[in-house]
Structure formats: structure tokens, C-alpha cells
């Protein structure tokens, strides 16, 4: 294995090549099998209808060569792009908000400095694509503009689609439809979902909820990045992409499934914590190691470990948590 992964990220110095190789040789068999199944499914016609079969296929992972296309189709981004030809380019040619441009520029060199494709010296340098996508999006969705965290998401979309316009429409699918308002100025959707996770932990892993409460650890402190960055820079790249496969198809409840699986699976470990800093450290540790690297088994776990999680439950919790937050001002 090379110092740089297939997506351009430099592997950390303490990267465990031996255990990654052991995992990857097994995963390669899965990837090959999935690739064959997917080519049959897509067979020439680049269209997919939502069905139980497709859902099952997506949970088992979209092969990288089809990932951009499938994300585009199942998220509705493809339809929006086709219905609005030239819209993306018009946004880039239109009048710009100077303050927005400045905020985006500030983060250019700070988005994936560990990825060779985002370096100034890279050819093509993906910073340009990233800048364009964020500028276009900020002018398209003026209520959101630019919010830190979107740079990472757009960056991943560009790495996968290798196409600015598609990245723009996928970003719109995520921010405009799939996620509740995580990035709007009040970030009410984010605050709500952090509380919803707290409630779900109370129901499904009560000992951890009790520990958090006893030490006064707010959920926002340990999980805000999970929501805002959709696990980028938290979990391994391959695992993040597998999560996003399901996110585009099944929606935002996948985030809760992942979070609950991480917490439930590591319950005993988290409960060893005896103070506030300990708890924070444990929450950092649980996003590392073979459990999360082995993305295929991890993705199986997220659909079994947390137990049933209906959209009705989540909607109800979202409603009560939102009202509570609003009443607190």
C-alpha cells in the first residue's frame, strides 16, 4: 500500500499497513462481487428505480465507478441538473457577495491539506473546483451562504464525481433536502439533531446517557462534527463513502444509525470514563480502529445494532426537541 490512498489522502505516519492489508484483501472479494452485481443492475441503461433490491444493493456498497452516477440519481440531483441547464454556470458568472467570497477563500488552504489533489501544486488543483462549487452554492442558497463544514463535504463530492456541476447539485441535495437545517444561521436543525441523538441514546444505551448527564457533558461537544461534517475526518474515507451511499438513498436517519452504533458498540469502553475530559477522549477513540475501518461489517452493524429506528420516532423526537430548544431561546 502506498503512502497516499486512492482518493489522494496521505496516510498518517502511524497507519497500520498490516491490518489494513488484511482487511483490504478480504474487502476486495466483496468489491469484486458487488461490481459484477451492479453492472448487471445498471446494464447499459443508466437509470435506477427505487426498490427494495436497490436499497439492499446500496447498503452493501456502491462500487466507486458507479458511485457518482448512483448518488446523482437516487438523491434527485440528476433530475434537478437536467431541469436547470446552465444554472450552475450562470451562478458563477453572476454578481458576487464579497463577504461570502472572503469566508470561502479563508478555508481554501485549510481544506484537506493532507490531500495531494487539493495542494496548490497539484494539476489539476481541486481547490479551484472547490472554490467554484462553494461560491455557486452560497449564491444559490443565500439563507445558508457558506458554513464551515460545507468545504469538507463539497471536497468529498468533488473527489468522487470529479465534476463541479454534479458536486454542486449533490451538495444542494444534501443541504437543501436530505439534511435538516444544519448550516443555516441559527443551525436549529443541528442543535435539534444533537438533542435527538441524546434522546435516542437515553432509550437505547441508557448507561451512556446517564454518564453524560452525571458529568454534565453536552452532546454538542462530542458529536457536533459527526453531524456537520457527515463523519468526514472522523471515520476512515471508505467508511464515510459507504455511509453516504445510504445517506443519499435513505436520508438523514442514517447519521443516527451510525452514531448509535458507535456508542452502543463501545458502551463498556465509554463507561470506563470517570470524568469530563475522559469522556471526550473516549468519544474520540471510538471513531478509530478496526471496527470502523472494516467498512463492510460496520455497515451491516448499523442496520442491526441500534435496533429499530423508524422515521416516525425520529420525526416525533425532532419535533419535541425543536420545541424545547425554541422555548429556551
Amino acid at each position: 500500500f502506498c503512502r497516499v490512498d486512492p482518493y489522494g489522502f496521505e496516510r498518517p505516519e502511524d497507519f497500520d499497513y498490516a491490518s489494513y492489508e488484511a482487511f483490504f484483501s478480504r474487502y476486495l472479494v466483496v468489491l469484486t462481487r458487488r461490481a459484477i452485481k451492479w453492472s448487471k443492475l445498471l446494464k447499459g441503461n443508466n437509470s435506477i428505480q427505487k426498490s427494495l433490491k436497490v436499497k439492499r444493493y446500496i447498503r452493501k456498497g456502491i462500487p466507486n465507478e458507479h458511485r457518482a452516477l448512483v448518488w446523482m440519481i437516487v438523491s434527485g440531483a440528476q433530475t434537478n441538473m437536467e431541469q436547470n441547464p446552465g444554472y450552475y454556470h450562470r451562478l458563477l458568472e453572476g454578481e458576487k457577495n464579497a463577504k461570502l467570497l472572503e469566508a470561502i477563500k479563508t478555508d481554501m488552504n485549510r481544506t484537506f491539506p493532507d490531500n495531494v489533489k487539493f495542494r496548490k501544486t497539484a494539476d489539476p488543483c481541486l481547490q479551484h473546483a472547490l472554490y467554484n462549487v462553494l461560491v455557486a452554492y452560497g449564491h444559490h442558497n443565500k439563507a445558508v451562504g457558506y458554513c464551515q463544514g460545507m468545504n469538507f463535504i463539497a471536497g468529498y463530492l468533488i473527489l468522487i464525481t470529479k465534476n463541479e456541476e454534479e458536486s454542486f447539485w449533490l451538495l444542494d441535495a444534501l443541504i437543501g433536502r436530505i439534511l435538516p437545517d444544519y448550516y443555516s444561521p441559527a443551525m436549529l436543525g443541528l442543535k435539534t439533531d444533537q438533542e435527538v441523538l441524546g434522546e435516542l441514546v437515553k432509550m437505547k444505551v441508557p448507561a451512556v446517557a446517564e454518564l453524560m448527564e452525571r458529568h454534565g457533558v453536552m452532546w454538542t461537544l462530542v458529536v457536533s462534527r459527526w453531524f456537520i461534517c457527515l463523519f468526514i475526518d472522523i471515520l476512515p474515507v471508505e467508511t464515510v463513502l459507504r455511509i453516504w451511499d445510504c445517506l443519499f438513498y435513505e436520508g438523514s436517519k442514517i447519521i443516527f444509525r451510525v452514531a448509535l452504533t458507535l456508542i452502543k458498540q463501545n458502551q463498556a469502553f465509554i463507561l470506563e470514563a470517570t470524568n469530563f475530559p475522559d469522556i471526550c477522549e473516549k468519544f474520540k477513540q471510538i471513531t478509530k480502529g478496526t471496527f470502523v475501518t472494516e467498512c463492510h461489517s460496520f455497515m451491516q452493524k448499523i442496520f442491526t445494532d441500534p435496533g429499530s429506528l423508524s422515521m416516525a420516532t425520529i420525526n416525533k423526537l425532532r419535533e419535541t426537541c425543536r420545541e424545547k430548544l425554541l422555548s429556551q431561546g
Partner: protein
Amino acid sequence: MAQTVTSGTSPEGLPPSYTYKVVLLGSMSVGKSSLAYRYVRNDFRELLPTVGCSFFTQILQLDEATVKFEIWDTAGQEKYQSVCHLYYRDAQAALLVYDIANKQTLSRAKLWLEEMEKRFLPDEIVIALVGNKTDLAAEREVTTEEGEEFARTKGLLFMETSAKSNHQVNDVFMAIVQELLKREKEKASKPFLHGRSTVELRASGARMRCC
């Protein structure tokens, strides 16, 4: 987390220990995370923008006390302000950071101060104004005097630092500790006015950690 304990010395005669929550506030890219990273790890590297909040701890063994800092590093983008008040709740100290090479960031630090003044009484929190990036002297837009003068009129601690070249980073945290300990002493001499710092009745070994 923070509870009121008034005892000054531990039963074993060891110096008392105090836990203080310190928050880093300021505009995007002024170097808040870099200051924390320099202070806790004594290193400098390219850091990703902080999204939400991150958390570091640092323990100081001083002659007169053991001080445990819980450092809360916050996102600088204005957008995050609506979640940030969750982070500086119950803080005992705050670093208001600006970039000496970017005048706007000082104005923003002033706004942060107004926000803090709304939420804290002056004796509840120690605030330091920190002009970071002295390594960018050639691009300086804010004079030392300007920062100093503003801090003086508002009764803030003041220091210019460089997380990159390790200039006065330790000093700014030490200045905060000294001020906090001074306040503990004053409080002890006025036993009915309880502060909000925590006194832990056990000595803890030197640790460095970050999460």
C-alpha cells in the same frame, strides 16, 4: 461540572487543585486552534478549520496550586455563534483572539467582548485579549499599542503571540492562571463570596491530553 468548593488546601497538605474552563473565541483563521495546539502539544501544523468545538486539557503543577485547564476551542465563523454560547457557558476564562495582520478580526473580538459582558459579571471571568500571528510582522495591521490600549480600557489581560513561532503562548496562559489564582486568594479572604471554580481534593499527576 463546575461546583463551588471553598477549601484552599487538601488534607495531605498538598497544594490545592483547581479546574478552570477556558474558552478560545475569535474570528475564522486567527489561530485559536493553533494556540491551543501549541500550548498543549508544543507543536505547530496546518490545522483544519474547527467545526463546532474541540476540547483539550492541560495540567499545570505550580508551587502554590495544581491547575487543570479544560480548553474549549470553538469555531470562528459567525454562523456558529448560535451554538457557541453553549460552549462558553460556565467558563472561568476566555481568550479573545485576533490576527494582528487583519484589522477586522480585532473589531470582531470587540463584538465578542460585548457578548461576554452580557453573559458574565466582570468578577466571574478572566478575559485576555490576544493578538496572534506576530510572525506576520510585515503584514501587521493592528499596532501593539492599539490592542494594548483597548485591553486597558476594558480591564482585560493583553498579550501578542505567535503560535507558529512559539512566541508568548505559554505566557498568556500563565497570565490567566496567575489572575485566576489571585482571585481565588481574594475569595478565600472573603469566605462568604463563593466563586465558581472547582477545587479537587486530590493531587493529580502531570498529564497532557487532547480530544
